[in-house]
């Protein structure tokens, strides 16, 4: 009896092991199905509009089999639980967008994402994707350890637009293309911080708004600058970081409330020294009045010209639907889509961005040159402001995969690890020392996990 029972038990265990090890049947079944993408109710993922347009494109061109199936969950938690259990079992959504709150930095090492270069190598068609036609600095942000895990589609540049009149009034730096580093601001804006003026340094609000405040973005970028993800070290205890934190605190005290209506150029209304710039050439040209100064900022180093990926996409390693993935990628990287996104052919994709396609970027400059501004004048792109801005865009030498200034974006680290600590610091619940201690502890654990 004991022998029979032990044989039955051994057989059941063996069966379950064999079933657990293989997933080939599941993958074979999936190859004929649509690509999938997950969202949750009331979420706003930047890729959603693009996928929607792509599905319409597929319908028009009778490629219904290439349409992307969007699965909507009731809550974010439900979506992530499903994602986690599916990935664990070797399946899951085919398309990931960078603003989904998952720890991309860790997942790159776990072999979750497909190497897009290898997928493109399988493409034998005439319209094969040639990555040399795209902005190299931006595209390289998606290459980790020689593998292209992420394909950036559109990007923004870290700039601040200054109010020339106000900067001159208070004898502050007003040179086009000036680098706003943490050290520069501390020394050059010292007098402005010490005296109380009616004008504000930039936008700040304790209430979370649709776009978030510039101060939040500056604080997150500062923290990001002092984390070495490669070597898993943090430098929050350095004097440099502490001084920069003090400087940001001064900025916060000198910064004012957000406008109720979303206006990009607070400088135009003569109340803010700085506002964040827009992210497409045509809107910049449309909103210039001759009173703007463009500055690179904020950074650790003067030589750094950073950008961030606004919309980026990654694909599941276990998805074998290469043809469909290629078709979707080609649509996103096509001249037509890239030009529509930056406003050359109207902007029905819901957000402003710079295109990664070099030719589309050059065309946006041409279009900006003939764009009327809000005063119905054609100022063109030969102004110092626009020329400095174009020069910054052409000189980008570093790119982050995440837009930390966006309320709906940002990296997993800021959303799930440091987010609460930062909020407690901003609300005054944590002193500077306690903030640095807690942030160091949480970040080091996160980096090493």
């Amino acid at each position, binding site marked *: 009896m004991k022998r029979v029972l032990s044989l039955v038990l051994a057989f059941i*265990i063996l069966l*379950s092991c064999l079933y657990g090890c293989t997933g080939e049947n599941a993958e074979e079944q999936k190859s004929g199905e649509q690509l999938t993408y997950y969202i949750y109710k009331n979420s706003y993922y930047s890729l959603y509009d693009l996928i929607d347009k792509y599905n319409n494109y597929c319908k028009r061109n009778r490629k219904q089999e290439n349409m992307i199936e969007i699965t909507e969950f009731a809550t974010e938690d439900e979506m992530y639980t499903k994602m*986690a259990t599916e990935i664990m079992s070797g399946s899951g959504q085919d398309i990931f967008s960078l603003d989904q709150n998952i720890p991309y930095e*860790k997942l790159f090492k776990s072999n979750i994402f497909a190497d897009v270069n290898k997928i493109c190598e399988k493409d034998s068609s005439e319209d094969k994707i040639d990555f040399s036609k795209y902005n190299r600095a931006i595209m390289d942000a998606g290459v980790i350890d020689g593998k292209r895990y992420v394909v950036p589609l559109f990007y923004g540049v870290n700039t601040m637009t200054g109010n020339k009149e106000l900067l001159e009034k208070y004898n502050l730096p007003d040179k086009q293309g000036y680098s706003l580093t943490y050290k520069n601001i501390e020394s050059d804006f010292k007098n402005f911080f010490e005296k109380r003026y009616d004008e504000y340094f930039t936008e700040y609000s304790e209430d979370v708004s649709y776009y978030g405040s510039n101060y939040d973005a500056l604080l997150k970028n500062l923290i990001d600058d002092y984390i070495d993800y490669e070597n898993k070290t943090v430098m929050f205890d350095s004097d440099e970081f502490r001084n920069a934190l003090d400087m940001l605190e001064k900025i916060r005290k000198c910064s004012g409330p957000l406008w109720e209506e979303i206006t990009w150029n607070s400088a135009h209304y003569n109340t803010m020294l700085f506002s964040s710039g827009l992210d497409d050439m045509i809107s910049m040209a449309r909103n210039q009045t001759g009173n703007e100064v463009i500055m690179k900022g904020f950074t650790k180093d003067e030589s750094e010209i950073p950008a961030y990926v606004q919309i980026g996409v990654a694909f599941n390693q276990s998805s074998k639907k290469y043809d469909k993935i290629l078709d979707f990628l080609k649509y996103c990287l096509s001249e037509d889509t890239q030009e529509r996104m930056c406003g050359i052919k109207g902007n029905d994709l819901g957000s402003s961005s710079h295109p990664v396609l070099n030719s589309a970027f050059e065309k946006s400059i041409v279009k900006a040159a003939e764009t009327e501004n809000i005063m119905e004048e054609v100022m063109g792109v030969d102004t110092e402001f626009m020329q400095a801005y174009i020069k910054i865009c052409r000189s980008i030498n570093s790119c982050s995969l995440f837009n930390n200034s966006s309320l709906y974006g940002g990296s997993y680290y800021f959303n*799930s690890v440091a987010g609460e600590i930062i909020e407690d610091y901003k609300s005054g619940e944590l002193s500077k020392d306690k903030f640095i201690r807690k942030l160091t*502890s*949480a970040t080091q*654990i996160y980096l*090493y*996990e």
Partner: protein
Amino acid sequence: MKYKTRTRIAAALFILPSFLGILIFYIIPYIICFLNSMYSGGDFTGVANYAELLENNAFWLAMKNTAVFMGVGITLLLVISFLLALFLNSFRKISAFFRSALLIPVIVPSASLICVWQLFFEDNGVINGILNSLGMDSVKFFSGGFSVVMIIFIYIWKNCGFCVILFTAGLANIPEQYYESARLDGASKLKTVTRISMPLITPTAFFAFLMAVIYSFKIFREVFVLFGDYPDENVYFLQNFINNNFKSLNFAHLSSASIVFSVFLILLLLLFFIFERKRNFLE
């Protein structure tokens, strides 16, 4: 069919539902977890995940904190519970209300418990208010080294009542004649406790130890509610490590950490079983 065979079949059928439950919900998932720990992103890696885990600073920090918490917390819990049980045993009868009151901390939901503890021990809480009114500085109960002390305190407070009830029942089972003989032989109270009560209560102590170990895992709820996913490094336990790796979809680390921890616990309990068998004075 022989009587013995029929009996055995009947016994097997009675065991089958529980056995199937254990098989489906414990044994098979454990085996699948073990197999997952040998894979990384669909590729077989063998023991590479374990090697990577053993080089992981966060894992060792979590193990160290868990070992310290379990070592100090469980020891203090058992000692305090036993002493309280000895004290209560000196009374002829413990009222039903008192017995129930001992169990109230066990049944209080963790979230409510934490709300009340935060009210008392937060930087601007009741205790610090009293200390400040006496001219003393505030104590940061929930930060730095004090945070682990608070967690151990919460753990003991929450589970002491249940262990006291266990020890009280165990002490009540010791035959009175042993104590009488000891009294007649002139043994002191200390000798009575160490030479009679403690050895004879070993089976109960073992059970209480098992329950204390199980409850030590459940402290993760309180730690999570108080400190979130990424707490201070003194209260970063193995459950935090496993939970965070689940959230960051790192199943290699998750599975290998779970297996390592389970092996550690199995060895610990095995040692205790062997010790208990050798030192069972009741037999």
